[in-house]
Each structure stands twice: as C-alpha cells, then as structure tokens.
C-alpha cells in the first residue's frame, strides 16, 4: 500500500542522472553503457542476478569506482573525479561495515564529526537517529553486542545521520531472516517517506524490489533491460528475461499468425489450441514470439471450458501446497509443463483435483503478454 502511495506521487525533479556509463575491469565489462535518471524522493531499485553490474553501478555513484566512460550527475553537478568523502550521498553497506571499536552512538556520530558540526548539534542528531530506528536503549553498546536486525538499523541510522541527498543501499536486507526482512522492508519504506530522501537500492530479490520500490531497473550482463514501476514490470515485461526474472511465468514459444491492430493470434507447438491475444503488438507476421502467462492467471478445472482459444488438456504431475495458495504443475500433451496457482479460498479448495488427474487449463485473451526478445 505504501508503495502505491509513493508511486502515485509525482516525482519529476531528477536527482541522479547516469549518462552512458561504462565500467571495465581489465577485459571484463561490468557496466555497459547504462543511462538512467532517478528522481528526487524515489525509492529506486537496481535488480538483477549476481554479476549483472548493479553493485558496480552503485559503487560508482558512491565514488568507490570511477566510470571508464560516461558521466554521473547528482543534483545537476557532475561528480566524476570527486572522492567518496566529497559526495553528497551516503551508503548503507551490505555487510553494514559498522566500526567494531565504536559504540552505536559513536558509529552514528562518525559522519557528523567529519563535518565538524558543533557537539550539541551532533548529540541532537544522534538522538534523533536513535529514535528513528528505535535503538535508544542500545546507544552505548558495541556492534558485536547487537543482533543482526539491530545492526542493520544502526547502519541505516549512521548512513542517514548526515541527511544525504541520496542514500545508496547495497542489499540492505540480505543478512536478515525472512520474517524480519519482510517487516524491515516496510519500515525502510516508511522511513524513506518520512525523511523524503531518495533511496537507490541494489537487490537480487525481485519480491523485495517489488514491495519497496517506486521504480525498478532490471539489469543483466551490465545492461539495463527494463525500467518501470513494479506493477508495469510484472504485467508488461518487455522481454523473456524480465518476465522470467520478475516472478514466475509460463512461456509459450510460437509464430505470429494473424497480426491485427486490436488482436493477434499465435501458433505454438507447445499448446494444441490457438493462442489469442486481445491487443496488438509490434511484430511482423511469421516472426517467432513468446507468450508469457502468469500462473495465477491460468484457470484449471475438470470440465472443458466453453472457449476455443488459449486452452489445452493435461495431466497434473505435481501439487505444491503453500498455505495461502496451491501450485499445480500440469503437463500438457505436448510435454510442456504449465504452472497454475490457485488461492485456497476454502479449506477444501481444489481438493477434488489431485495427482494424475486429467484437467483443462485456459486463460483469458487479455491475461497474456507477447514479448519478441
């Protein structure tokens, strides 16, 4: 809910502009010609697998790496060549990088001391930060006397204490267990909205990116594949990579048959019926395309549905019960395995469908997306 609220606010003043940035380590190109603009007050996520260049990009914004070519502007100012300690950004490290020889208080005060703020001001700001992350009781403790979750909050407080224009977060929640991570995701979003600081977050966890971000950039092999808000990214992926990376998806490979302005049809050897999509796409007839259907948009039943398109028959080969939902793996006669998720509305929901049952699957023409790459 928080995410939607943040998304609806209009964010148009650019705070970070990345222009054609390339970073090479020897022969290896870690970041390959990335351009993107992040607006004031956004919670922007760089999402991708390990080695996709997302962390390198973040480290270039922080100043720990210099771009091989291209420019990075913060608030309109070119920061190339500025040392990390001269940049108006702060970073929260994946390992937290808390100073082990300092107390929580001293850790938070560290950045303020570097700025030479008066003692009273430092004290006030530290108290504010401790209150923000609810760690007042632990002010005098050393980092190793804290739990993982508490350390994470100290790291957050320390990086926010200087009131940076932009906070960079490198996998901020990866060291926390699942329960704590989910709670902290929402807390981070609340803090971000409260302080109205721009957050740029690196993560490999698409759920995390989806829960927290106003916009997400999906990266692969040093390049940005798609930039969008989480909703659009999920519903309208621009490529197989994004569709598959962002949540799970059923992908049918086929050939574009009828190419009309308001609908297209696709023939796929993986499904016996025709695939009918109720919107036009930018592709030529006869071109190979992929149809992506999310598992929750596929219907499953024992009776044949009253449709002729987007339908097939198969055998249930596996059922995964997840409490809230159940996932059915249906092997079509073509051998294609289709994943179908169904909410468990009643306690006995779908109890009649079981292993080795013959079932029908189908989906609505507006439920699928066609991607061409």
């Amino acid at each position, binding site marked *: 809910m928080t995410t939607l609220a943040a998304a609806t606010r209009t964010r148009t003043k650019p705070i970070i502009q990345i222009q054609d940035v390339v970073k090479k380590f020897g022969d290896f190109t870690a970041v390959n010609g990335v351009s993107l603009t992040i607006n004031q007050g956004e919670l922007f996520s760089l999402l991708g697998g390990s080695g996709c260049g997302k962390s390198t990009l973040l480290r270039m914004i922080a100043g720990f790496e210099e771009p091989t070519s291209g420019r990075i502007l913060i608030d309109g100012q070119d920061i190339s060549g500025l040392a990390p300690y001269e940049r108006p950004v702060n970073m929260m*490290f994946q390992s937290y990088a808390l100073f082990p020889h300092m107390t929580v208080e001293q850790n938070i005060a560290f950045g303020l001391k*570097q700025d030479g703020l008066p003692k009273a001001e430092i004290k006030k700001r530290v108290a504010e930060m401790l209150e923000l992350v609810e760690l007042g009781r632990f002010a005098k403790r050393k980092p190793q006397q804290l739990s993982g979750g508490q350390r994470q909050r100290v790291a957050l407080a320390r*990086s926010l204490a200087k009131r940076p224009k932009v906070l960079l977060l490198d996998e901020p929640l990866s060291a926390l267990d699942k329960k704590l991570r989910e709670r902290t995701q929402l807390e981070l979003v609340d803090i971000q909205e409260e302080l109205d600081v721009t957050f740029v977050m690196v993560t490999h966890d698409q759920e995390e990116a989806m829960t927290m971000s106003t916009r997400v950039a999906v990266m692969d092999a040093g390049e940005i594949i798609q930039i969008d808000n989480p909703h659009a990214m999920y519903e309208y992926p621009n490529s197989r990579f994004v569709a598959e990376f962002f949540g799970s998806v059923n992908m049918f490979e086929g050939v574009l048959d009828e190419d009309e302005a308001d609908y297209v049809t696709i023939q796929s050897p993986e499904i016996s019926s025709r695939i009918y999509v109720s919107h036009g796409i930018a592709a030529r007839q006869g071109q190979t395309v992929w149809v992506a259907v999310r598992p929750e948009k596929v219907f499953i039943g024992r009776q044949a549905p009253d449709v002729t398109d987007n339908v097939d028959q198969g055998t249930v080969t596996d059922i995964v019960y997840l409490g809230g939902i159940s996932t059915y793996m249906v092997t079509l006669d073509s051998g294609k395995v289709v994943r179908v998720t169904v909410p468990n509305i009643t306690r006995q929901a779908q109890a009649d469908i079981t292993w080795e049952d013959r079932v029908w699957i189908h989906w609505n023409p507006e439920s699928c997306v066609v991607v061409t790459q």
Partner: protein
Amino acid sequence: MTHVRPEEQAREPGAVGVPEAEEGVRARRMTGHVSRWMSRRLRIGGRGLVIAIPYVWLLLFFLLPFAIVFKISFAEYRLGLPPYTALVEWAEGTYLRIQLAIGNYQFLLEDPLYVEAYLGSLKMATVSTILTLLVGYPMAYAIAKARPSTRNMLLLLVILPFWTSFLIRVYAWIGILKSNGLLNNFLMWTGIINEPLPLLYNEFSVYLGITYSYLPFMILPLYANLEKLDRSLLEAAADLGAKPWKAFLTVTLPLSVPGIVAGSLLVFIPAVGEFVIPDLLGGPETLMIGRVLWSEFFNNRDWPVASAVAIAMLVLLVVPIMLFQHYQARDAKKES
C-alpha cells in the same frame, strides 16, 4: 573405561593385606592393572597427548631451567664446583638444613649498578620498540595494501635476513658504521663530512642494531592484523566524509592496536635482555642488564647473583605483561 572398574575393586582388598599364597596372583593382577591403566591413559590420550607435548616441552626447557636458576639465586657464592652453596644439606648427618640467602636480591637493590642497568635496559628497549614500530608500521601497512602477488614477495623480503646468522648481521653493521667503514667513507668521499662521524660504540648504534634485528618481529604480527582489516570499514569512513588520513587515524589505527601490542611485546621483551647487540655495537656507557648478567656470570663467576639478576629481570617483565593480558582478556570478555 567401565571394564576397568572390577579390576580396581579386585585390587583394593588385595592391596590392604594379601595372604602369602595370593602373592603371585596379586603380582599378575598388578601388572594387568598397570597395562590397563596405561591403555586407559592412552585412550584418553590421543588428544591429551597432543596437548601434553607443549606442556612437556615447557616443563623440560622452561620450568626446569627456571627452577634451577631460581634455586641458585638463593644460594651463596663459594669457590669450587659448583660455584655456589647448596640450599638443602644434611647438617652433621642428622637433620636437614635449608639455607635461603636472600642477600643476592638485597644486593641488587643496594648496588646502583643493577638498578641503573635495569633502567638502562628498559629505556633501550622502550626506545627501540618505538623506533621499530615507527619503521615497521608503514612497511606492514604497505605490504597489506599491496597486490596479493607482490605481497608474498615483500613478506619473503622481510623474512630473508633470517637466512643469515643474526650474529653475522650484527657484525656486518660494525663494518658499515666504524670510523673507516662503508658509511663514513662514502660520506667523506661525497664531501658532506670532513672527519668520520662517531657512529659506532654508542647508543645510536645499539638502537640501530636492535631496530634492524627485530624489525621482522614487528612487521609480521602487524601485517597479519592489517591484512585482516575489512576494506568496507574504510569505504564506510570515506563515505561518511573522512579523508584518507582521518580514516586511518579513526579506523585503521585503533583496530590495529592488537597488532601493535603483539609486535611491541615481541620486540620489547627480547630487547630488554639483549646482550649480543649492546656488547658488539654498544660503547662502555651502554649499560644493559644483559651485559651485567654476562659479566656477573662469566667474569665474576658469581652464579647466585647472576641468577638473582635473571629472576628479577623475569619478574620485572612478566608481571606487567600478565597484568596487561589480564586487563585485555577482561575487556574482551566485557565486549562479547
């Protein structure tokens, strides 16, 4: 282990009073018991044995010699062999007489020579340790910062001098520092000086010798510490606005204190008792306890006083170190 128990119970009554006829049985039982005891020991052993080796080593080569020296320090000087009186002897063949002479220790306090030599040693060791630290820290830092491939080469260079005998290396300094030695000749040749500088046989040469000889002992523990330093801590410091020099002072330096302490102890302790370097490179005014000890032992042949000097030196060194470690352990405990 349980099967030993009946054997033990069987032995108990036998040990109290055994009839003549059972004598043989008892003997056999005893040997059986001993072997079983051995095997039980050994079975506990495996691991115990590994732990035992250092203990046996310490016992044989530290505690035992120490006890002997400690004993001699309470004896009195006499002409003959051994050159000291016995502590425990049969007086007139009837009773044991134990004679402890604490006079040696009193003597150490009374004669200013010893106190001065102690203080001289402490001063020498302190200054040398500081010098070694000042030279060694940047070197250790540079090695830790170097690329991994270069790092091993640099470490090898640090250890390389050990391949030549310590004594020869100290002698080599004489060749360099003496009036018509390498250094003076070079300086005179360049015209910087007109007459040789007094580089040898003074405190300067001793400091130089100790710093040179003990440098690896400072560098290695410091390197081990600095190499472990989490790079992201320095990045965090820079990110929070600390310039490199400030980051060094506020992060690297405090976190390397354990390395500084370890290196300093490794230099300070042997430097206090150092004999070879002050003897070869030092002048007559270089008063160090190692030299006093040597002359007490070999020139005066006064073993008891020499032993007392050794014991006093040990106490003077060990007590502060133990206190230090005690407080450090307590701090570490408080932190975890």
